[in-house]
């Protein structure tokens, strides 16, 4: 990393976050806010350190259920997106159901999943999957549907099959849409896993926060929130990095 990258990309977010926490701490101290309402960052970090073993243990469960759900969503979303973008009739057949399905709040589905699979990691994985595949489908299908008709003519005039057009143009063209949607999907998958854990689970950050809330341990609740935020940023950054690696051509002019 050179100096310019540091001053433009690392310093501003670090400073901003620091200011945010300092301001929060200052407000809590100045107005003597009770710990049970809003704990100051210092309280939260204390709790984070004190209960590090439990938090780490539960974070790990949330992380891997999220990732498994996200992986399923990626594979399924990609396949369904290609199918939907492939032909108008598939699009017409699937879309209303997809939208209806996406409109159902996933919290409402979790009790059913628990009924079927019992308390454990599986409902969390499935919820993460259900909530995150939709944007992938929509984006892949959009990428495929917006292939320039003239380019398709160029290839068809060479005797290219539909599959050829997909392989040579459609799919590479929809990759930026696909990777873009992964950034949205990973955060959604995370939300899905945590939501499922707060409805019913025996492990995970969501479950930990629920227990802490019941015991009036507000600092631990906030420690959980903080861990969730950090994990969310890390996961987002990881997918953004993958996106940039694979579809650098779509970011032309920004970094060149």
């Amino acid at each position, binding site marked *: 990393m050179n100096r310019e990258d540091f001053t433009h990309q690392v310093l501003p977010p670090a400073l901003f976050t620091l200011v945010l926490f300092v301001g929060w701490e200052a407000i809590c101290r100045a107005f003597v806010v009770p710990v049970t309402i809003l704990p100051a960052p210092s309280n939260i970090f204390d709790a984070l350190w004190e209960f590090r073993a439990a938090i780490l243990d539960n974070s790990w469960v949330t992380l891997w259920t999220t990732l498994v759900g996200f992986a399923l969503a990626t594979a399924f979303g990609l396949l369904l997106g290609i199918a939907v973008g492939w032909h108008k009739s598939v699009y017409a057949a699937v879309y209303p159901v997809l939208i209806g399905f996406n409109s159902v709040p996933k919290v409402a589905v979790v009790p059913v999943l628990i009924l079927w699979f019992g308390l454990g990691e599986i409902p969390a994985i499935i919820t993460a999957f259900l909530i995150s595949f939709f944007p992938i489908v929509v984006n892949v299908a959009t990428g495929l549907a917006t292939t*320039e008709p*003239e*380019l398709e*003519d*160029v*290839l*068809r*005039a*060479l*005797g*290219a099959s539909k599959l*050829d057009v997909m392989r*040579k*143009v459609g799919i*590479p*063209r929809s*990759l930026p849409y696909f990777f873009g949607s992964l950034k949205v999907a990973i955060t959604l998958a995370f939300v899905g896993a945590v939501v499922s854990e707060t409805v019913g689970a025996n492990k995970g950050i969501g479950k930990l926060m629920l227990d802490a809330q019941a015991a009036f341990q507000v600092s631990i609740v906030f420690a959980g929130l903080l861990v969730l935020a950090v994990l969310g940023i890390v996961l987002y950054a990881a997918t953004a990095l993958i996106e940039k690696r694979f*579809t650098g*051509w*779509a970011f*032309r*002019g920004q970094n060149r």
Partner: protein
Amino acid sequence: MQEALVVLENVSLAYGKGASATKAIDDVTLTIRKGEFVAVVGPSGCGKSSLMKLISGLHPPLNGRLAVDGKPVTSPLKSVGMAFQSSNLLPWRSCIDNVLLPLEIVQPHRSKIRSDRDKYKAKAKGLLESVGLTGFTEQFPWQLSGGMQQRASICRALIHEPEILMLDEPFGALDAFTREELWCTLRDIQAQRKVTVMLVTHDLREAVFLADTVYVMSNRPGSILKKCDVALPRPRDLEVTYTQEFQNVVHELRALIGRKHQ
């Protein structure tokens, strides 16, 4: 007189079906010889591009007879190279990989491109150099100027040595100087390779400068108003566009197109 490559007899074409169908081309009869340079001019929306789609087999005729190389056209021909007003180069492929694209589709190259990649690359490089893109082969399309992109696009249309080169207003988006430069490039390519060219254009000077035969189409539904043989001797230099003879031909064509609007 060389043999006929493309034959159209009383061909019509319509988009849509039944009562709502709009006729784009009406009763067109024409013959394109092997190696001939044909230009089609006409007011916008007169079905010039439809004529191109028709001949390349991308859109079936409503009625009439359409044959290429003696065989009736029922599905997309596999020996057509196409280029359009926008270069349509794939932004994730370098210039040379864009030119190689047709070879990944058309047989027999398709099954050989992996094993003979170096040979094909050399061929593509030679082609790009012949249109003045030496040193730009590994650049990405968005690093090239509009004129360069269009040159690469024409190379892509030529790499598989098609029998017919179809150009749909390929120079429409370029500035006047670049356009004239590319006229000369196209003129040289055609003279060298004896490829049959069908050029759809709005630009009458372009049509007369490049073509052996200019067809003037009427307003929609398009039909052939006039076939005009350009008698100017080849090779033609840009200077020819300033001669009286050239101006006369352009003027005559302009009168045919202007008629319906005035």
